[in-house]
């Protein structure tokens, strides 16, 4: 199976957000790989490898993981990270962070899909900066492919022709089957020990919780892997935005709270002061 995974860089969510006027002050931002995209890479690796308790597992030549990032040159760093985790190849499409919206991203990915012809596109369910939750479904729509969003489990079925996907929805977990090729966006719990089943790795194999760290060997190997570079123009994508960000501002601050000394005081305050009990 050939899998295309998308990778976006986002500001470290743990870092305090600083604004410069009405835009993000990026001078001190620590960029990192969007966590959901890291999970998508891990999912792609689990879907393609034959893992055992003794090692990360080998991959057959037809099983490939290609990662694509759209952004400035510096995104190489995040792409290298995915190569060090075990992806085979990366593609960097040159574009400024603020010259992109979900539509430009989806149209660009559509071109990459036409070129690479993957069986599956794996994406994050959202980007931790824009939080638009848009690009994956949009890409599926443009391609006319089935989609499975918010995936918390995934299993290869029908002799490799389809996926059975567990989706976290409001009421609980939905199981949806999608014929390949398809677009799948991953949720948090896709990196749980038994979330991914590929028919090669023993079905009771327990992965370590979370995405894998790059091993030293992985980091060395990544240096020899290719990052192909291209541009929106070369792909024939016009970078016209459908959604423009006009201004950013800090949300209204919450009024400073108080510490109460006892449950009795708490309940009195909730009743008399806050009037919520």
């Amino acid at each position, binding site marked *: 199976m050939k899998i295309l995974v998308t990778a976006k860089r986002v500001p470290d969510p743990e870092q305090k957000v600083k604004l410069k006027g009405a835009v993000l002050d990026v001078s001190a931002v620590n960029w990192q790989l969007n966590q959901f995209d890291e999970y998508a890479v891990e999912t792609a690796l689990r879907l393609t490898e034959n893992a055992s308790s003794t090692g990360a597992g080998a991959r057959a030549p037809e099983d490939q993981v290609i990662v694509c990032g759209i952004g400035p040159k510096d995104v190489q760093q995040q792409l290298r990270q995915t190569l060090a985790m075990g992806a085979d190849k990366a593609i960097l499409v040159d574009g400024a962070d603020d010259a992109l919206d*979900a*539509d430009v991203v989806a149209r660009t990915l559509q071109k990459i899909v036409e070129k690479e012809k993957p069986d599956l596109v794996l994406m994050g369910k*959202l980007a931790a*900066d824009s939080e638009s939750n*848009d690009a994956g*479904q949009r890409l599926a729509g443009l391609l006319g492919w*089935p989609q499975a969003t918010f995936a918390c489990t995934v299993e290869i079925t029908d002799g490799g022709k389809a996926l059975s996907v567990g989706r976290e929805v409001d009421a609980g977990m939905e199981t949806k089957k999608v014929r390949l090729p398809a677009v799948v966006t991953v949720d948090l719990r896709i990196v749980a020990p038994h979330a991914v089943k590929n028919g090669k790795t023993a079905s009771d194999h327990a992965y370590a919780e979370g995405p894998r760290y790059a091993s030293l060997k992985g980091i060395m190997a990544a240096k020899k892997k290719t990052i192909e570079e291209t541009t929106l123009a070369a792909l024939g994508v016009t970078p016209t935005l459908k*959604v*423009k960000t*006009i201004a950013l501002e800090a949300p209204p601050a919450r009024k400073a709270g108080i510490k109460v000394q006892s449950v009795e005081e708490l309940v009195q305050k909730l009743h008399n002061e806050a009037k919520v009990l």
Partner: protein
Amino acid sequence: MGNVLIVVEQAEGQLRTASLSAVTFGKKMAETTGGKLSLLVIGSGVDKVAAEAANLGAADVTFVDDGALKNYLAETYAPIVVKAAQEKGVSVVGVTATAFGKDLMPRVAALLDAGMAADVVAIVAANKFRRPMLAGNVIAEIEVVTPIVCATIRQTEFAPAQAAGAASPVAKMDAGPIDAKGAEFVSLAAAKSDRPELTEAKVVISGGRGMRESKNFDELAKLADLVGGAMGASRAACDAGMVPNDLQVGQTGKVVAPKLYVAVAISGAIQHLAGMKGSKVIVAVNKDPEAPIFQVADYGLVTTWEKALPELMTEIGKLKAAQR
């Protein structure tokens, strides 16, 4: 032109209350654009839902009823939304940002070649909106520059639409060709609960990793029941299997804004705060005085839940008795 279409969500022939927020958004948008508000119901055996939607004060209600649409699939529903949008000549298509709305609307936007405003918290103009970004640490004003604007609406920021006096006309629309594109609904494992829905409750009692195990959540449940509240949880509590995943509050769980949110043994990670910071009053119970949750709490109590919960039951019990 300038008309507005709102997709009304239903599950098993029941209108989902969450949709009422999008209807309110739709009314405001119709006022802003000077157009008409239409509602759209899709499914199988949904004539009752359509009749219910007709009480919400829209100009009209369209419903599409077909056995092949029994279970929601983005692949089959999106083209129907597009068809209705084109027939109604709309400039805005909206839906509440539930799992359904978030899955559906970007696909609709792709088919309409439209820009999408995700998780709208306020309307600025016919094509300008405010929405949170970066886990709610920033509010962005955005402009959608396409002739049609697609939007998902944050439920907590728009009051549910109320029943209006007169019923709107209801018309059935043909689904057109239905093609699932190789997608198939298999099953839904729904967690059943008698408590109010998390996103609609006036009080939410949430527990975190510090609750340690599933049976300790029974204590929280008692408190929730005493105040008629819903149960919530942090990701850590869900991941540890203490409670079902659909109770998760946060950036990647549900967004809640009750009158009272009580966070018990939750540290207050930004991803959790993103889902509950909009609550009117926040109470935190945590044994660690340095826990970040105290920075957003109106009332903080530094103690263990083992000590606080029984006392809370007693004190609130006394209050309830006095109110009777």
